[in-house]
């Protein structure tokens, strides 16, 4: 990695309004970042953090001074990289063969452009018209620097989420940007993958000396990497800035109230450990599962179960088959070997094996909450979404309406009753997906990474709700990486080592 010319950022009364929106995404923003400085941006959703990053990346083209069809919105004030408007800086860099700013986003699967690792990294260089004989050495160096050593021809679809982020990182690194823009790059990775990506980013920044602006909810790990924290407020621009420790001391309480994971202020929820071991609800006997029909067995030899009033947590590294095991317990994947058997507490229909039940029989007995809430949405509004389950199990319209209203209120979604589920924020989608499953009052709840990428407010609301369900006699099974969640709720932990699973 060679060093680059770090970029200076100057924002003066900057604002941006997307073409189709009435409200300004950002307004009145003043910010100065010195060359080589690293800044962590914090703020509630809707404060325009991502818009600012897109603006810095030069991706926002205002209607002023450009042809109308290129414009994506309206701007005011100034947003400058080394004194040049950011969108013009991006275009000028195309001729220089070296990007001014590089952007790394959240979603690993959506950031891979091409089918082979080498091509994916070369893509940006080609667009910057770098000569062919220079491209490949730069690609190889970038892949080396991020620790991806599968070779240029390796198919990108075989990479894990963490590796895909690493690949995207290499694609940006090869362009030698003087400014790195990181938009929650680790929020969809497991703790191990996130830590490794972070340390690679730290190396890259140290060796290139580039300027960096990062947006992250989980600030603990990033705090040591940045020089300064800047807090944004919706419509208010930067309301607080300073050293990480200074800002957390001055504004920690307010940030925590907005759901930021402030170091030393993680949410604490008082929970009651499940003391009464109720009747057995669901049992796995010598169970083996493959994640898909043609895939190899991900987990085998599992004998465990869940009782009424108990929280069982499935933990283990990525690829240990936690999710597959959870889905098999939920009656969604047939066992490759062994059996999943419903106990009498679940009042099984004709057969005791959940994967043979009809969807309607399943939904009133076992509820499964998926890692990705969007996969589970089937209706056009939140209220209808909650009514789907109760209708399926044959509740009257009156009963259905009561349950829906009750759940909306309990999960703080009443004002969103008419909103389309796909338009909700990440935290709201998570709460809705849990509520949809609760609507049919299943005795067993299976949750796959329920706290993944959630802010501290949603996290605390979830823990409270799950604790309450346990007290009411539900049996809960959670596949999770979240140590803080384990400390709050786990009655029993099933550890799945990578490869050969066992129970503890």
């Amino acid at each position: 990695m060679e060093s680059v010319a770090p970029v200076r950022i100057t924002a003066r009364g900057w604002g941006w309004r997307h073409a189709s929106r009435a409200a300004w995404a950002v307004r009145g923003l003043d910010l100065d970042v010195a060359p080589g400085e690293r800044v962590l941006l914090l703020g509630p959703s809707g404060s325009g953090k991502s818009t600012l990053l897109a603006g810095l990346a030069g991706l926002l083209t205002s209607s002023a001074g450009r042809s109308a069809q290129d414009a994506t919105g309206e701007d005011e004030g100034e947003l400058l990289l080394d004194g040049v408007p950011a969108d013009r800086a991006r275009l000028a860099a195309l001729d220089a063969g070296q990007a001014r700013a590089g952007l790394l986003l959240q979603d690993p699967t959506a950031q891979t452009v091409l089918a082979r690792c080498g091509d994916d990294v070369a893509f940006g260089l080609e667009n910057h018209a770098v000569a062919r004989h220079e491209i490949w050495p730069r690609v190889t160096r970038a892949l080396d620097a991020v620790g991806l050593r599968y070779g240029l021809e390796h198919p990108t679809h075989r990479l894990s989420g963490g590796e895909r982020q690493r690949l995207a990182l290499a694609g940006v690194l090869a362009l030698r940007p003087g400014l790195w823009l990181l938009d929650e790059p680790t929020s969809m990775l497991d703790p191990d993958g996130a830590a490794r990506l972070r340390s690679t980013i730290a190396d890259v920044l140290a060796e290139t000396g580039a300027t960096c602006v990062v947006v992250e909810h989980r600030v603990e790990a990033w705090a040591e990497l940045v020089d300064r924290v800047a807090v944004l407020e919706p419509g208010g621009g930067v309301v607080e800035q300073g050293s990480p420790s200074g800002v957390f001391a001055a504004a920690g309480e307010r940030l925590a109230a907005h759901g930021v994971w402030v170091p030393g202020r993680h949410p604490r929820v008082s929970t009651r450990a499940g003391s009464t071991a109720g009747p057995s609800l669901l049992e796995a006997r010598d169970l083996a599962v493959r994640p898909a029909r043609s895939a190899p067995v991900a987990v085998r030899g599992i004998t465990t179960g869940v009782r009424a009033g108990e929280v069982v947590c499935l933990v283990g590294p990525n690829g240990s088959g936690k999710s597959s095991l959870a889905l098999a317990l939920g009656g969604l994947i047939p066992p490759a070997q062994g059996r999943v058997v419903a106990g009498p507490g679940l009042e099984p229909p004709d057969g005791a094996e959940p994967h043979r039940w009809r969807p309607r029989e399943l939904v009133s007995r076992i509820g499964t909450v998926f890692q990705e809430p969007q996969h589970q949405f089937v209706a056009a509004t939140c209220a209808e979404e909650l009514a789907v389950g109760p209708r399926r199990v044959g509740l009257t319209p009156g009963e259905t309406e009561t349950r829906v209203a009750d759940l909306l209120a309990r999960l703080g979604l009443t004002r969103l009753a008419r909103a389309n589920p796909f338009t909700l924020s990440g935290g709201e989608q998570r709460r809705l997906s849990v509520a949809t499953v609760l609507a049919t009052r299943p005795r067993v709840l299976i949750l796959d990474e329920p706290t993944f990428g959630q802010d501290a407010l949603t996290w605390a609301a979830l823990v409270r709700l799950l604790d309450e369900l346990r007290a009411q006699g539900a049996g809960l099974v959670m596949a999770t990486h979240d140590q803080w969640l384990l400390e709050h709720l786990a009655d029993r932990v099933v550890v799945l080592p990578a490869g050969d699973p066992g129970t503890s």
Partner: protein
Amino acid sequence: MSALGALDGSGRAGNGIDPTAPLARANPLAKLAVSLTISMALVLSVDVVSAGVALGLELLALPWCGLAPRALARRGWILVVAAVPAAVATAVLGDSDAPVTSGLAIGLRVFAIGLPGVVLLATTDPTDLADALAQKARLPSRFVLAALASMRLFGVLAEEWAALTMARRARGVGGGGPIERVRDWGGRLFALLVLAIRRGAVLATTMESRGFGTSRPRTWARESRLGVGDLLIVLGGLALVAVAVGAAMAAGTWDIVIA
């Protein structure tokens, strides 16, 4: 979802395909040209001789395509699915004087036109095809690369589809009568579309932030080359067509269909 897997670029490393075989390693444009030439010639006339001879010659060329029988069967079954009903329908429902012959003519035609297509798809990496289309056929690179990137998303969508299917079962949806199944399928398709648009938007941002989407000149990391081998392959394709048509003319069965 093996068809989608092939689109994702996984077909190249795929089982039973030898990428170093003379026809497999040819420039995708040469393969495309041969495939198109055969198709265009064979749709002109519906007769047994031209299709039969073309298919026979194609089968003779098969050993140089690098497709093991297993790989061919896995990708070629669709031709059987298409050819047999087409042939039967023509024979039974057609108003021809010789129903069996015209059924056979149609069936053989589907095979003779389809086989080069199967070989093309199985032995061609989409990336190489895009390189060739943009560099050699001079198609606009923005269009070609956008299409290539969206094809990679297909593989992701296949996984999404499986997850959607499970997630909806968990919601109690599906599994009823045929009407409900169709409705459920429609619902899943809609959800897939929404997810695809979201992913597509992120992908577009990524591509743009790496300098894609302007009209400025770009370079190509890998040069798409047309060599002597490619010329021979195109000539071979032309010869194949000439022999097939010539044989049909000699046999007096060549009869140009004019719509």
